[in-house]
Each structure stands twice: as C-alpha cells, then as structure tokens.
C-alpha cells in the first residue's frame, strides 16, 4: 500500500480547518454571552440604587414588581413541588413502566417545552375571564403549570439514580412502600429534589408571556405586606411584565428602570441556576 503524501497532507489540513471551525463556533457562543452580560452591566448597573427596592413603580422604584414576582413564584412553587414530586415519584417508583406511565412521561416532556404563551392563554380563559379579571392567583397557576413538568422530570431522574438496594433494605426491615419512599428514598434524594425545585423556580422566575394576560400589572404594592390573599386576589405586578411595559415605553426613565429590572432578573435567575447545579454536582444530572 502506498501513501500518497499530498493526499495525506490535504486530509490533515481539512481536519485542522474543521477543528478551527469548531473552536470558532464555541468562541461565537461565548462572545454572545459576554456581549449580553456587558450590555446588562453597562446599561443596568447604573440604574440600581436603594430607591429600586424601597419605592413602587409609580415613584420610580421596583419594589412592587419585585415583591409581586417573588410572591407569585413562591405560590406557584408550592403547587408544583407537591404535584411534581408526587408525579415524579409515581413515574419512578410505582407506575412508570405501565403503558399509562409511558404516556404520562411523554406528555410531560411535551408540556416541558410547550410554548409558555399558550399556558397564559389557557389560564386566562379558565381563571381570568370567568372570575372578573386578572389576579395574582391566575398568574401563579400559569407559572405552576410551567414549573411542574420540570420538577416531575428531575424527580423521576433523581429517584431512578437511587440504588435499588436501598429499597430492598428498607422493605426487608418490614417498611411499607410509603414508608420506604418517604423515609428512605426521598431522604436519600433530598439534594436532587431541591435541585429540581430550584430549576423549576429558575424557569418560571424569568417568564413574561404567561403572566402578561393572567396577572395583569399594578403600579402599587399591596399594603399591608402580610395580607397575602389580598395581594394575590388583585392584579399583581411582576418584574418581567414591568420590564415589558417599560422597555416599550418612549420615556428614557422607564427604559432605565427596565434595564435595572433586567439586571436583577438575569442575575437572580443565573444565581438560582448555578445554585441548583452546584447542589446536583455529585449526582451527575
């Protein structure tokens, strides 16, 4: 067999060009990330001051939007952690291998990447129009529908990672399935379940589209703060919806507030994501 030197050289060169192209692609993605972070820092950081946290949007702050966002996300997370962990447990421990189980898993995956605006339209037709207007509850339900599939998915994944010897040991000691799951499996998977919750939280805290037509907007914060039912029953401001309205406003002051909100939101979401990944670091998720 003879080796044609020019052909070998050409093949090598093609390979080098290919490697270079792959590096270039990675560079493009990293540059995009840098450009966005740079804009956030240069445009938004100057707008961040104490007033943001102490004044309402009517007075040039973001207090009502921040409080509204946190409230709706927390209420949504209460729903979706309960339902998502139970559904994920059912898929991993009880009925995941049945035909019905496969259907649930498949449709959960579909729901996981369904367009969020449709969830907003859906909740708006069942919870806003019949009940006389937008409310924090409707917003929280829309967010819960988006977060639950994330929690379900991570719960199932993390429970499947638990060694079956754990279950066998528990059952050999005479524990029932419920006790096994509650006292052994959920406990062993604790950090992973928390990660699922955090990833769900990160997913919904930046969502605008489902809130636009469900939670409405509000220039003021509901007083007093501990009247949670009162706050959630009214139209409720949120950081993303406020950003949407203010970014499209012709006034520079409003745009500036929107950028300040963008910085808060982006770094909060990135922080939650990083925290979730850090908790899951040894679980290989």
């Amino acid at each position, binding site marked *: 067999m003879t080796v044609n030197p020019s052909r070998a050289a050409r093949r090598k060169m093609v390979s080098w060009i290919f490697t270079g192209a792959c590096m270039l692609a990675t560079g493009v993605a990293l540059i995009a990330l840098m450009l966005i972070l740079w804009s956030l820092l240069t445009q938004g950081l100057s707008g961040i001051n104490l007033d943001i946290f102490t004044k309402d949007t009517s007075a040039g702050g973001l207090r009502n939007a921040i409080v509204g966002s946190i409230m709706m996300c927390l209420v949504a997370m209460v729903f979706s952690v309960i339902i998502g962990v139970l559904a994920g447990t059912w898929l991993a421990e009880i009925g995941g291998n049945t035909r019905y189980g496969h259907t649930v898993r498949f449709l959960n995956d579909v729901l996981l990447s369904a367009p969020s605006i449709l969830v907003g339209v859906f909740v708006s037709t069942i919870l806003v129009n019949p009940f006389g207007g937008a409310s924090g509850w409707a917003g929280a339900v829309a967010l819960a529908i988006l977060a639950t599939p994330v929690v379900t998915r991570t719960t199932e994944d993390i429970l499947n990672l638990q060694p079956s010897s754990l279950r066998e040991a528990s059952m050999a000691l005479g524990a029932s399935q419920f006790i096994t799951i509650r006292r052994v499996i959920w406990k062993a998977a604790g950090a992973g379940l928390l990660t699922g919750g955090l990833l769900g939280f990160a997913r919904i805290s930046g969502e605008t589209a489902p809130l636009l037509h469900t939670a409405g907007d509000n220039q003021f914060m509901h007083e007093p703060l501990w009247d949670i039912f009162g706050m959630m029953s009214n139209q409720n401001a949120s950081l993303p919806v406020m950003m*949407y309205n203010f970014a499209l406003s012709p006034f520079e002051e409003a745009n500036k507030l929107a950028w300040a909100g963008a910085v808060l939101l982006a770094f909060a979401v990135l922080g939650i994501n990083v925290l979730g990944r850090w908790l899951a670091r040894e679980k290989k998720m």
Partner: protein
Amino acid sequence: MSAPRPAVSTDQIPVRRDVLDPIFRYVAFSAATLLLAVLGGLIVALLIGGWPALAKFGPSFFFSTTWDPVREVFGAAGPIVGTVVSSALALAMALPIALGIAIFLTQFCPRVIAQPIAIMTELLAGIPSIVYGMWGLFVFAPWFAKHIQTPLSGLGGLFAGVPNGANIFTASVILAVMILPYMAAVFRELFRSIPPQVREAAFGMGATPFEAVTRVLIPYVQKGLVGAVMLGFGRALGETMAVTFIIGNSHNFPTSLFSSSSTLASTIANEFGEASGMHSSALIALGLVLFLITFAVLALARWLLSSQRY
C-alpha cells in the same frame, strides 16, 4: 411495582401499611394524571375558544393574509409564515454553531477547560427571554440597522425593508442565540453516549479527526441529532417575548429577509390583552395552530431522541 410481602404472620404487620400504601399510590397517581388533565384542558380550551373564528372563516383563515381587527376579518397566513420562516432561519444559524460547540467540547477540548466552557454556554439558556428581547431591541437592532441593513438596503430584493433593525432576520438571530445552548447540550450528551471504542476504531483505521467525526460519530447518533434539531425548532416556534420585541409586528406576508413580520406567539402576546369577541377567538385559534405545530415537532423530536438508545 408492588412491595414483596415478607414471610411473617399478618398479626405482626402494623395495620398502617395496608392503609397508607394504597392511599399514597392513589395520591401519586392523581398527581401524574393531573399533568395529563392540564394538557387535555389546554387543548380543549384552545379548541372551544378558537372555534368561532375557525367556523366563520373556514380554510381561508389559514390562507388569507388579511388581519383586520376593525372589520373583524382574520387570516393567519402572515403570522404562520413568519413563525415558520423565523424559526427555520434561526435553526439554520444555530445548528452549525451548536454542532461545532458539541464536537469541540467532546472531541478536541482539553478536559480542564471543557467543563467551564460547557457551563458558560449553558448560562446562555438561563438568561430570561425578556432580557434577550431587551438586548435585541436596545443593542442589537440599532447596531444591525446602522452597520448591516443600511449598507445592504440599496441591493433591494431579499435585503429590502425599512432600515430600523426590527425585522424577521434580526429576530432569527436572537432566536438562534436562545436555542443554541439547548441544542448544544443535547448534542453533547449524544456524543458522550458513543462508546469510546467506536472513536478509537475510527482512529485505528487511520481516520483524521475530521473523518472520525463526520463519517463515524455523526452517523452513529444520526437519529438523536435530528431529534435535538427538532427540539430546538420547537423551542424557536413557541418563543414569545424576545421575538415580540424585535420582529416589527406587522401582519403582512414577509417579502424579504429584512421585512418586518409577526409570529403566532408575538401576535397573541401583543393583542390578546385588548381583544374581545371575534378578535379574541381568532387569537385563540392562532394559539391552537401554534400548539398543533409545536406538538407535532416536539412529539417527533422526543420519539427520535428516545429511539436513540444503545
């Protein structure tokens, strides 16, 4: 799966186990069923809400480009084409880059820096869509209008349009950046799932890295790659806020790369709040169309990805 019953006499077993187990199974089953019920409810709500518009306009709803809330005449062809074209353009831009990232990280990159780079690209996925929208509106669109669109506008044809940066092309660029990390992450998982012997065998035959990747590794995970591409496409189709900010929101049929347009999702986001009657029904019908398109794409993606098992 039911618990194996240990061989002890029944009087030693606490009564609770027989009571709590079925209740727990029932509750967990209900939670799983609730997920299905939500999806079912979503479809039914879209069908009921969109029916008046679909019944009134019939097939012309899908082919007409008239979108006139004042005269209450609605045709969805503009938004449908805008959605598909902007998503397809985004896919065409994101695919080579995502593939390049995945190949670089799994094949060429030293392990020490592969992990940090992977995390950084995944951070792109964590940035909220509204922030992409604002970045597009305030930073990218003006830059694009000044440095690319204005010099090219003299060419006409594909490059014709109002040089304000709010058009179908800039929307696609933002979309591409948004779906990039998702696609890169799935690609990376796929390349990692290939047994090392396959790669070693390719090199053992004397293949260069380029030949190993294009002739052995990529064909090996072909189906999964197509699935990941569909997943990215599904995401791009339903993306709302970023597109709403930058696509220009015109219901006309897009005639060039730089003409302003609208998508199904952006039209709903813009108009649903103020709509009533037939207008609202037409918007929900748009939602139904969007749901059917994304459902088909996502179902295909999941099917392709789940059949990629070795």
